[in-house]
């Protein structure tokens, strides 16, 4: 599947859930907010939400700011 992840095109051999994607990227799910095609995903659905080709995914987190 081919997805746009934080502005970059990424290709994965198999279809992943959001939970699996975060695991592959070594990201702690409680520190990251996931948006798929402009819709914010609630953390409880990470394990049942399957990504598909063409999805645009944003993974955001808090950083220092004023």
């Amino acid at each position, binding site marked *: 599947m081919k997805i746009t992840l934080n502005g970059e095109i990424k290709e994965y051999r198999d279809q992943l859930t959001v939970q699996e994607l975060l695991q592959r990227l*070594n990201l702690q799910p409680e520190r990251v907010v996931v948006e798929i095609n402009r819709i914010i995903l609630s953390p409880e659905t990470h394990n049942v939400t399957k990504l598909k080709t063409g999805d645009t995914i944003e993974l955001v987190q*808090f950083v*220092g700011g004023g």
Partner: protein
Amino acid sequence: MDHLIIAGREFNSRLLVGTGKFASNQAMVAAMESSACEIVTVALRRVDIDNPEDSLLSHINPDRYLLLPNTSGARDAEEAVRLARLARAAGCEPWIKLEVTPDPYYLLPDPIETLKAAEILVKDGFIVLPYMPADPVLARHLEEVGTATVMPLGAPIGTNRGVRTRDLIAIIIEQANVPVIVDAGLGAPSHAAEAMEMGADAVLVNTALADTTDPALMAQAFRKGVEAGREAYLAGLGGQRLQAEASSPLTGFLRND
């Protein structure tokens, strides 16, 4: 007790601190601690997927500090609303420092888009603290749509130039029914004291703390500046006059004329 009250919530400290640009998380935490602040701002950005960083949140004790996410980077109301909703989804309380700054050079807030976003976010249940130009008319409009504070700028973000908008901030303070937090541009404790002496309810600083060799010491200095200014405001500053007025008795001089 002299509390700052925002949206019904009481705070002992009138100094809000931004978490950007510190040389290290340790320096940031040290500054937060010695500032005695209770509200800290944070920004929301894309995760660097190839190079995931240590999470900022692991350094900020949520029992001690209210996390106030900002919408920095937003160029219009739509982007600001999107960032606010993402921040809320991160599990924060629905407090948001609304920032809409389309101009990258001076980072001045867009009054029209800020007002639009404020209205949407208030209806959506957010407690909105809008960063805004020091415009008394805009302050009234923001209050009317239900913002919890107004946050006029002293000078452009990160410039350390002090309360350059003094006369306009004085009008905002005179008219406001919500707390006035002077945000942006304060570079020295004397600037913070000046804003507080004028009757501002609080100030927010970031660059002035992050951009020194000793952020913790500077944060302590700002804490004292804010407290000094607040106490002077409560005591009531004496009136100014051009002609001298002696403070020592004008009688009993050691001369015979």
